[in-house]
């Protein structure tokens, strides 16, 4: 149970950070940009968590 919580928490942190990065890197911001950024951030958060586990659990 705690492992699932930790995994979800890490995913959430990555997602927030990457969505924020997206918003910082684009031009004018509107609702569509937030939606697209959140979607891309979700995919990238999964990849980032996988990469961190691959590097860290060696």
């Amino acid at each position, binding site marked *: 149970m705690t492992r699932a919580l930790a995994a979800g928490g890490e995913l959430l942190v990555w997602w927030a950070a990457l969505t924020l990065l997206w*918003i910082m890197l684009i031009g004018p911001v509107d609702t569509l940009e937030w939606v697209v950024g959140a979607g891309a951030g979700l995919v990238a958060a999964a990849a980032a968590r996988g990469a961190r586990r691959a590097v860290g659990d060696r």
Partner: protein
Amino acid sequence: MNGWTAAGTALLLCGFAPAACGVATGRARRRVPAQNVATTFLSLVFLLLSQGFARPAYVDTALMLSVLGPAGTLLFVRLLADQLADHPPGQRWLRVLTAVNYVAVAAVVLPLCVATGPGRAMVKLLVIGVLLALGCRVATRAVQAAAAMGHGRGAPAEGMSDDR
């Protein structure tokens, strides 16, 4: 032609061109660090030209190069690991190049941040600067690790050392 464009052209002429000569000639121990320096300097040139031509779209090119440059250096290190182990680059030389990289990144990104003013554009510039600095550090450490490893990892990179 304003000051920023002049600075970009000067960096292209006096920074990227010598680094390109270093990439095109010599052994792997010169080419791989020179490739890192060349891509870093070129990314900085793109940032300066973006400010000079007043086109924020050029900053995206610099962002892409700040990610692809170190990736390319790591690729060369991986595939030329045995050449680097045979003739390792000098430690002092590597340190000098890394210091030059860091100084150049700071010298270009900080004035550009001041010129851009606070806002998301400045955050973007700082992100590019951090990526460039991190890329330099990662690339230098990879070169040092490959040089220090000797012939321990002959299997992945064998077949590449038929070179003078």
